[in-house]
């Protein structure tokens, strides 16, 4: 069965994006809404404040009636951009100086301060706020000195996000193409394996379970998903049956169809047109 995603335009060239009027109506240009759950497979540390002394504390926020772990969207976006630049073999574009002329900038946007050109990201990520309640659990850690002649290790403390913590992951892609959806799903899978947050060489790896993709701007609310218990998978599946908002209901992808598409599109780049690797 051909899904609506496979019928999207293959890819937007940068010149096509700049040919659109600067201001667009998202609903007219098209939006797809992806809803899933990100689960931490190892501990993670999302530092957002300087903290005091040798303590580093993961960020927290009070939301939907509870204090919860708070994972800023940009900590996902940054890893995603690096993965895309590497996987699509983009030359002449870096996180420091986005070229505003490659397929990654076309999707994730950027500002080039030399040319003063700015492209907005068409991937609208939102902060990830945990299903599980925040728990202050201070871990005592030790850092061995780099210099072997120094014998005293440095102690420090961390408040981390424990493995198994789940986060609703709601993403909207504006004016989507097949490449946009594929590159996003593919990069997300690799980014999950690389890990997010502080010291991701050792920790911060995650997995994403996609539950629904809506053809339209679904009015899916993280607050609604987090209120009334922690069974967000069941509530998201219920949303797939009756998606709220301007959505083409017949096109909703969920269940086995979605799992098959995600499996195919994240195992290789051919299905979504990222195979050439040229920028």
């Amino acid at each position, binding site marked *: 069965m051909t899904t609506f995603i496979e019928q999207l335009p293959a890819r937007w060239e940068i010149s096509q994006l700049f040919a659109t009027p600067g201001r667009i109506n998202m609903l007219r240009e098209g939006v797809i809404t992806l809803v899933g759950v990100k689960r931490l497979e190892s501990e993670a540390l999302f530092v957002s404040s300087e903290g005091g002394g040798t303590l580093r504390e993961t960020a927290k926020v009070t939301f939907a009636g509870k204090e919860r772990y708070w994972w800023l969207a940009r900590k996902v976006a940054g890893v995603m951009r690096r993965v895309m630049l590497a996987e699509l073999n983009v030359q002449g574009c870096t996180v420091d*100086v986005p070229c505003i002329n490659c397929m990654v900038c076309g999707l994730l946007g950027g500002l080039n301060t030399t040319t003063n050109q700015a492209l907005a990201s068409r991937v609208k990520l939102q902060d990830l706020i945990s299903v599980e309640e925040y728990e202050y659990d201070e871990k005592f850690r030790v850092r061995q000195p780099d210099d072997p002649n120094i014998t005293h290790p440095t102690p420090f403390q961390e408040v981390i996000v424990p493995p198994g913590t789940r986060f609703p992951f709601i993403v909207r892609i504006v004016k989507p193409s097949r490449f946009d959806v594929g590159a996003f799903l593919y990069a997300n899978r690799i980014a999950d394996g690389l890990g997010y947050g502080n010291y991701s060489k050792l920790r911060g790896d995650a997995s994403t379970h996609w539950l629904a993709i809506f053809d339209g701007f679904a009015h899916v609310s993280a607050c609604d998903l987090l209120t009334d218990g922690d069974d967000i998978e069941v509530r998201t599946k219920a949303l797939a049956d009756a998606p709220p908002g301007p959505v083409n209901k017949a096109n909703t992808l969920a269940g086995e169809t979605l799992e098959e598409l995600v499996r195919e599109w994240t195992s290789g780049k051919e299905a979504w047109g990222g195979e050439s690797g040229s920028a």
Partner: protein
Amino acid sequence: MKAALLEFELESSTQNVGPFYAGYEGTLRYFTREAVCSALTYADCIWQDKTEPYQFLSFPFESTPAEPVDVRTAEVIYNAGDKPDQGLLRFGKQDLLLPGSCFRCALWGDLPPLAEGQVFLIGKKRAPARIVRLTIEDVQPNYTAEGPTLPVQLPPDAVTRYRAFAPLVGTHRYLILKLPLMPDLRRFAIGGYIVPWPEV
């Protein structure tokens, strides 16, 4: 005339960037009427030439700026990229409007579709927000209604026409202020609030 009073809650952190200097990017605690109208019409900017002057926006309906009802902010550290001396804010501090913050505004005129639970994107990086309270009524402009007032947004050169005002936010492009309910100030009431409608 149709009017709506709505309250919305942020689902993600965002900013309405105000002070921006020396590695510090602050946020204002109000959203402008342009931010509200763009959000509720699902307008977005795909590209921008930063050298172009600001284009004033018009919409089929009017709006007050969104005032804070229950707003929390947090100062977060920011570290982007690999080279600290390139780009704009590479390392510094940002004030963010936190998820769960609630704002109130009023709209009138040719209203867009609105519903409780509706999600839209607003502010820097377009944070999702959800309408948590909505009142839609037919209203009659008058010069006598009394009650708690919503703020108005005016160009800086327009405020001198008013005998009294309390400034809440000031930028080079607009001022957000409270106007006292003088007898010559046009207004209407909706959802328990008075919306000043100056004849600018």
